[in-house]
C-alpha cells in the first residue's frame, strides 16, 4: 500500500478546474517531485492533501485513512507536515518558538497544568519540547538564530525554518512547496543535502520545485501537472525525454 493515494481528485474555483481527476500514489520513503508550470495546480494539490481546501471529487488516502472532510489538525496528527510556498511563519514569535509550536500536536499540557506547576520548575514536557526543537534547529543549521524573531531572518533561512517547523510535527509525509524559491546556488546545495537527510530519517517527501537540476538530482519519481491535469509520471530520466513535458514545461534546450 502506498503512503499517500490520490485518486481522481478534482478541485475547481468558480468553474475553473485547478485540479482535474488527478491520480497518483506516493510510495513510502521516496522523494516524489511534482512539477509543472505556474498555475498548474501544484499548491492546490497540497492544500487538498492538508485539508486547507476540500477537494470536490475523488478521494485522498493516507496510510489507508480516507482524508476527505477531515480537519487539517487531524491530518497533521496522522503524520502529514508541510511548508508554504508563500512563507507563513509566525513572524512575531522567535525561531525557537516557531519550531516548538510544531510540537503542539505531539504534546498535551493544558493551561491549568502550565499555570499550577511548582515554582522555578519547568514541566518535563516543555523541556522535552525545547530539546526536540533545538535538535531540529541544529539539523537545519539555524541554531545560532534561536532567539531572533522569525520575521527577522533572511529569506533562505526562513525557508529552512519552515522545514524545521514542519519536521517538529513528526510527519511521516513531508510536503515541500517550492523550498528553493528565492535561494542562491549555495543555499540550494545545502537544501539538497537537507532533503536527503530528511529522507534518511524515514520521512517520505513530496517536493514541488522549479529548479530542475535539484528535482532531477534528488527525486526518485516525478509527476508532471499541466492545467490541473497529470500529463506524465516517471523516473527523472524518463521525464526529461518526455515530449509532452518538454512542450508544456521544460522547453527544448537542456
Amino acid at each position: 500500500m502506498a503512503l499517500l493515494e490520490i485518486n481522481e481528485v478534482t478541485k475547481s474555483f468558480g468553474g475553473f478546474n485547478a485540479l482535474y481527476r488527478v491520480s497518483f500514489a506516493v510510495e513510502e520513503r521516496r522523494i516524489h517531485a511534482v512539477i509543472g508550470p505556474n498555475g498548474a495546480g501544484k499548491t492546490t494539490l497540497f492544500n487538498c492533501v492538508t485539508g486547507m481546501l476540500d477537494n470536490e471529487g475523488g478521494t485522498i488516502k493516507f496510510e489507508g485513512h480516507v482524508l476527505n472532510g477531515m480537519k487539517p489538525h487531524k491530518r497533521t496528527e496522522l503524520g502529514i507536515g508541510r511548508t508554504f510556498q508563500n512563507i507563513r511563519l509566525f513572524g512575531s514569535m522567535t525561531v525557537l518558538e516557531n519550531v516548538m509550536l510544531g510540537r503542539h500536536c505531539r504534546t498535551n499540557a493544558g493551561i491549568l497544568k502550565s499555570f499550577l506547576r511548582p515554582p522555578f520548575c519547568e514541566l518535563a514536557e516543555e523541556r522535552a519540547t525545547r530539546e526536540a526543537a533545538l535538535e531540529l534547529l541544529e539539523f537545519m543549521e539555524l541554531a545560532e538564530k534561536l532567539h531572533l524573531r522569525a520575521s527577522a531572518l533572511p529569506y533562505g533561512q526562513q525557508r529552512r525554518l519552515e522545514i524545521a517547523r514542519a519536521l517538529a510535527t513528526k510527519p511521516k509525509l513531508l510536503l515541500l512547496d517550492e523550498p528553493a524559491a528565492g535561494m542562491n546556488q549555495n543555499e540550494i546545495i545545502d537544501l539538497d543535502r537537507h532533503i536527503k537527510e530528511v529522507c534518511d530519517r524515514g520521512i517520505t517527501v513530496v517536493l514541488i520545485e522549479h529548479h530542475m537540476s535539484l528535482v532531477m538530482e534528488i527525486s526518485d519519481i516525478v509527476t508532471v501537472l499541466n492545467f490541473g491535469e497529470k500529463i506524465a509520471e516517471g523516473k527523472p530520466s524518463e521525464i526529461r525525454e518526455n515530449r509532452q513535458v518538454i512542450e508544456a514545461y521544460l522547453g527544448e534546450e537542456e
Partner: protein
Amino acid sequence: MSTSMRMLSLFIAVTVVFGAYYLIANLFFRTDAYIESILIFAAINIIVSLSFYLPFSAGLLSLAQAGFMGVGAYMSASITTLWKFHFTVGPLDLTFFIALLAGGILAAIVGVLTAFPALRIRGVYLLLMTLAISEIIRVFFLNFEYTGGASGLGGIPPLTTIWNVYVALVLVVLFFVRVTKSRMGRAFESMKEDQDAAEVMGVDLTRHKVVAFAIGAFLAGISGGLYAHYALYIDSTNFGVFRSIEILIFTLLGGYEIYAGPIYGGFYLTFLPEWLRIIQDWRIIIFGGLLIVMMILRPAGLISKEMMSLRYWRSTLANLWKPRVEA
C-alpha cells in the same frame, strides 16, 4: 534605536517605577480612602482588560467582556445579597471566594455559548457579534426583575478590600506570566498570527478558541464580582457598550502584543482622569483622542513585546544619553 523610542522607554520606565512606589506606599504606609478606591478600581480594570486580552492574544476580538463582567457581578451579588449565603471553614470565611468563583464560572459558561457561533466568523463580524451578545446580556439584566431589573441591585455587602483585590490581581498576572510561555500560550499566539497556518501545524482551532473565550469570560466574571462588592450597587448600565469600549481602549493604548500592555493601560487610564479632574467628564473623548494619536505614532500600543526583556532595558538605559546610537 531612535531618540523618540528612547524617550518613550524612559517615560515608561519612570511611570512604572513611580506607579509601583505609589502602589506600595498606599498599600502599606498610608491609608487614604480616596486613593484606595482608585487603586481598587485600577486593579478591577486591569483584570477585566486582561480578560479582553486573553481571547485577543489568540486572535479573537471580543467586545462582550462588559457583558461577561455583568454576569459575574449579578451572579456573585445574588449569592451574597439575595440568597444571603454564608460558608465558613473554621475561622475562614469563604463566602466571597465562592461567590466570585460562581460568578466567574457562570460567565465562563456564557463565554462558551458565545464561542460556538463565534467559531465560524472572523474579524469585524466577530466584533459585531460579541457586541450584540454584550447588549443581549445587558438588556436581559435590565428586564430581569429577580435581580432588580431597571432599578438595579443594591445593598450588596462590602466584601471587596484592597487586599483581596490585589491578591486576585497577582494571581491573574501570574497566570499570564506562566501561560504566555507555555504550550497553550504559543498556540494562542500562532492563531493570532496566522490561524490557517496554525491549524495546519496541528492546532485544534475549535478547542483553543473555546478555551480562550471561556477563560477570558471567567476573568471578566471575577472582575465583575469584585466590582459589585465594592460599588455595592449595580445596574445594567454599568455593563454596557461603553464599558466594553473602555476595556478595549485600556488594551489598545497600553499595548496588545503582551499582557503587560493591558496592565499598564488599565492602571494609568484609571488614574489619569483622577489626576486631571477636569477631564473626568471628557474621559471617553480624551481616550479616543489619545487612541488616534497612538494609532499614528505607535500602533501596537505603548508597551511592546521587546520591552519584556532585561536586555532591552539595560541597553536602552545605558545608551540613554548618547547622542546617537548606531544599530
